[in-house]
């Protein structure tokens, strides 16, 4: 209810305000720096007019973690603990989730702001009410896969900046719409590929080492993970289970083909449209960051059948710069399994994942990077980078073009698996040249009224 919203909204929030005091906060995103509380207002808080007002759409495990702070979210204490953010709205189609998130966020703010009975965080079932609020600057989207791109697009059209959990799209077409919308509406957008910023800079180090020629000329990359993609599993189902109280099933489905509630809600309906697009983005994001291909150059996707099932097939990506990326592990090398890869060059190799970074020969990692070496975008906090870019309007470390280029690598590999044959991809035109069957798998039709 809008009436309720306006009554419980915190003190007047100037959208202009967050620009003016970006200085102290920039460094937090670039390097770990302690800002003296006296510089920021009460108890170290940024004055209300300078905080970024946020809405959280999807407050399950990941979204709730971002909000309140849990594993995998990289924000100690969550966004409610941040001095430079004011959460105004939480939204979820599950009543118990949004009620819990609202209760906890209000309790934490009551304590943090010294205002017992604080009720400035509103809860919503329907995201449209969140997007309609003019006082919200940015939204954090952590939704089932099929809602990620449609929600990000709607939010950006409504003038919001967007953080979106991966997978950021489930088809090539959706990804293209995300890019176009961000550009058209001049929005700041960051995808949840935290490995670029977190994990002590291990992935960035690997990327810069490889780009700087420490392993000679990069020849091959081992991705440790198959791609996934849009491919058909049964369109709908007649399996029916009692609908849990407080679940808005129709809104959960949104653009997906209608089906009765069958006991499934989570990241995605099992097999409906989507292959493994949840973990593969971490691997392929780091790989493409490091391979640094010409993003307009064609990619050959080679399908190698191994055994009776295509699900055991191996995919080899042939980039125009000569680098070949394999969907398999580097034989005998365990580092790479957890979101990483093994990069093999003419003079050695570097393997990196969330748990470690190793080189062969070991001395490669002993030689520090120098001024003349390759350096990439540097951020030590993913959320810090997002918020800093909202203030400065700089491009984030994982902007739409990067995030979608990664997703497309996963889609085209998955489409190759679905077709059980090699394909050729033109990233500039977003099409498989002359390959009609493959091209037909680049999109799906959303269910009215959830058209884009």
């Amino acid at each position: 209810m809008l009436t309720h919203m306006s009554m419980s909204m915190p003190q007047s929030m100037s959208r202009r305000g967050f620009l003016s005091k970006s200085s102290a906060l920039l460094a937090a995103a670039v390097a770990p720096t302690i800002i003296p509380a006296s510089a920021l207002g009460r108890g170290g808080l940024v004055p209300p007019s300078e905080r970024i007002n946020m809405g959280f759409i999807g407050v399950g495990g990941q979204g709730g973690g971002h909000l309140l702070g849990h594993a995998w979210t990289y924000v100690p204490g969550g966004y409610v603990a941040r001095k430079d953010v004011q959460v105004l709205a939480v939204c979820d189609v599950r009543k118990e989730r949004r009620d819990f998130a609202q209760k906890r966020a209000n309790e934490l703010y009551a304590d943090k702001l010294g205002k017992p009975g604080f009720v400035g965080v509103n809860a919503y079932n329907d995201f449209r009410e969140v997007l309609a609020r003019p006082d919200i600057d940015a939204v954090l989207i952590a939704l089932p896969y099929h809602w990620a791109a449609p929600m990000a697009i709607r939010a950006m059209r409504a003038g919001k900046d967007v953080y979106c959990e991966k997978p950021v799209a489930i088809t090539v077409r959706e990804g293209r719409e995300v890019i176009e919308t961000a550009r058209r509406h001049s929005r700041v957008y960051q995808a949840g590929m935290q490995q670029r910023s977190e994990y002590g800079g291990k992935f960035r180090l690997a990327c810069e080492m490889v780009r700087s020629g420490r392993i000679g000329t990069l020849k091959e990359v081992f991705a440790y993970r198959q791609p996934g993609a849009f491919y058909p599993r049964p369109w709908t189902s007649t399996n029916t289970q009692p609908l849990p109280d407080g679940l808005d099933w129709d809104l959960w489905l949104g653009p997906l083909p209608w089906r009765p509630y069958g006991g499934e809600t989570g990241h995605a309906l099992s097999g409906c449209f989507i292959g493994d697009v949840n973990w593969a983005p971490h691997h392929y994001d780091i790989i493409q960051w490091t391979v640094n291909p010409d993003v307009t150059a064609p990619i050959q996707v080679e399908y190698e059948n191994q055994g009776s099932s295509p699900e055991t097939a191996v995919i080899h990506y042939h980039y125009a710069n000569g680098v070949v990326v394999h969907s398999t592990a580097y034989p005998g090398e365990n580092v790479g399994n957890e979101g990483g890869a093994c990069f093999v060059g003419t003079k050695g190799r570097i393997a990196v994942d969330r748990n470690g970074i190793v080189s062969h020969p070991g001395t490669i990692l002993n030689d520090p990077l120098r001024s003349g070496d390759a350096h990439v975008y540097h951020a030590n906090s993913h959320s810090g980078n997002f918020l800093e870019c909202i203030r400065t309007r700089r491009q984030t470390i994982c902007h739409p073009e990067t995030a979608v280029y990664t997703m497309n690598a996963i889609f085209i590999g998955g489409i190759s698996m679905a077709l059980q044959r090699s394909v050729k991809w033109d990233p500039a035109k977003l099409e498989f040249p002359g390959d009609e069957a493959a091209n037909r798998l680049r999109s799906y039709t959303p269910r009215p009224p959830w058209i884009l």
Partner: protein
Amino acid sequence: MMKRFIKSLALAAILASGSIFAFAQSSAPVQAEEQSLLGILRSNAGFAEKCNACQRLRVIGTENSIEALSRLLSDAQTTQAARYALEGMPFPEAGEALRRALTVSSGNIRTGIADSLGWRKDVAAVPELARLLVDESDPAAANAEVTALGRIGGPAAVEALKLARAHTNPSLQEAVQRSLLMCADNFLAANDPQAAAGLFDQLLKDPASDPIRVAAWSGLCRADSGANPERVKAALGGKDEPLLLAALKIVRELNHVATWRACSKDWDRLPAEAQTAVIDVGVRFGDEFLPILLLASRSSSASVRQAAWLAAAKSSFPPIIPSLATAAASGDASERPLAREALAMMAGDKIEKAILAEAKQAGPAEKVELLVAIGDRGDAMAETLLMKNASGGPEPARLAALESLGKLALPSTVPFLLNLALKTAPGGDIEPILQALGMVCRNGQSHEKAARLILDRVGKSSPQDRVRLLPLMAELGSPEALQATLVAAREKNPQIVKEAVRVLTQWPNASAATALLELADTASDSTLQVLALRGAIDGLSQETDPEARLAKLQRAMALAKRPEEKRQALGQIGQIPTLKTLEIMKQSMVDPTLVNEAALGALGIAEKLAKDHPQIVASVANEVLAHSQSPELIKRAWTLRGKPPGPFVTSWLAAGPFTESGASSALTLFDVAFAPEKEGAAVSWKPLSCTGTADLSSLFPGELNCVAYMKTTVSSPADLDGMLLLGSDDGLKVWLNGEVVHRANVDRGLVADQDVATIHLRKGPNELLLKVTQGGGGWAACARIVSRDGSTIPGLKTGVSK
């Protein structure tokens, strides 16, 4: 009925067992498959079956499928799937079918069809979409028609949208304008910036919302670059916040030198956030940027200075170096790391020379920053300067110079560093010098040359000098270095011998182990014996030959006079899984001082060998249960034997949640005594039954940073010893009859039996009390009591007193 059943089977075979990967078929089978799927569409099959057939036809459907698919467009249950198939087909006939259906449909069906025509960019659909839009009563359908016109684009679509702007419901205006934005972008993509600019300009005059206004303004910037300098400058310096935000973004995207020049000229009138954007862009424009960079470096705004340092890192302007050195040495905490990074990263030959020159004349604090930067940059030209500063002078500069010499890792600096080390007075701080030499040794490119120089010098040194350089031998780790160290170890001077042995214990590979064992055997000094023995055992962890490793570890066991070293050796022997090592472990288990290490090793070996030698399992488990008192090892022995422990406690009383005001973590509540821990305090207990795991989050939903208590009564048939197996999410403290028997202040998920405590039960009732902490997420606990051998205790009962 049977025919339909067979068709269903065919589809199931494709979609399920035939799987998702069913596209790689030659044309004849595909044609047959299409016919089979069309049969389903034309049959009385259920909607789900027909939808699944449509889905497959999306990929393999030909013109032959269009007629059957189009019939499904008017059915609410199949229309989306039918559109899915038709929308993706490259055939004009698919478009025709959709256009025909558009005219006769309504509501959501029309909405979807209009959407599909839009994605197909079906120019032929424009007249009909425009006609329908005039009188469209369904808001969702009107939105879809408008959106489709936007996607299709072109002059006819633009005219239809302009008409819609004049005639339709005001609530549709934003969608209409969004579609006009799409049309304008389509013009831009088609290389018609004039048409695009015209549309953006019109939208900018009467926007339906701020997002539309921002998009139109940004679009105009992209389409009409000639007017950008004044347009962008005005937005950056103006009070219109949405346009300022857009300008900050677009000025970085455009990369337009004329626009940047216009903004630069107005530098003093721009707000700080606009100045940062000008800095970000300026670094792309070469020497023209330098005056702005120097201005920014003197700004009173920290954010502007930070942007300057970020830009400096990407530039090659020597004049900025003094400012960077000052910012790195004494700037705000927020800008110092950025300035340091810029000093390290600036590229170009001139930068090296400029840093060198500045370091010679800079103040003390700035000099330190510049000396550090030289090392980070790997500037070999600075060798002389670094050596000069490393030789003497103020301590911070000396240490910075030494560190940078280490980072440079130049073999040519090795003689200097060796001399410096030997010149250091006894008791002086030689450590930074050896660290610098160590860095040179570790560097892959300089290692070999540095090793030769160091060994040569060590060979020519007096015994006293040699001992000072000995730590470097372990850095080298080569056979020659080992030989030099062994020579020192045979000296008569006990100080030299001790240092040599210490260095051998740091050896990076197993090659020093044999010599250390000899020293352990022959040294007259017992301290030296122990040092050598421990070093030998440590070093053997690097031995790759398992037989050699075992033989040497057995010798170490024989030489060991104290249990500490025997336990250390056993720890390593346990890592070699053979029947022979298992026997060693079993024999050692009888020694009370070695029992736990031996039991641990035996269990580890048995677990690895159990598959090929199942006969060893029972005997190892029994030996461990007979000798070890460790709850963890006893539990592992049960697991090895494969007998499941006894039943869980299923009946509890629970009380909670308890917390303290301001508690930010459950960990801080672990030792806070709440009412259930206080004798006589009033507590409201609730019954809590479970089959194994007691779920506190169901009993006390939505709680964070708190604790709850669970209690039950354990009735024992006699005084006896037992094992209490526990699991908890998160932490757990346990009392038995008022005595704490277990503590685990952790943030974790529950795994049954993850903790074990040995307990003594008295005959009759015993009170068991659990305190379970809750940080976030799940909240639960489980417990069971078993005998020492893991079996159920006959006659033992647990549960809440009735």
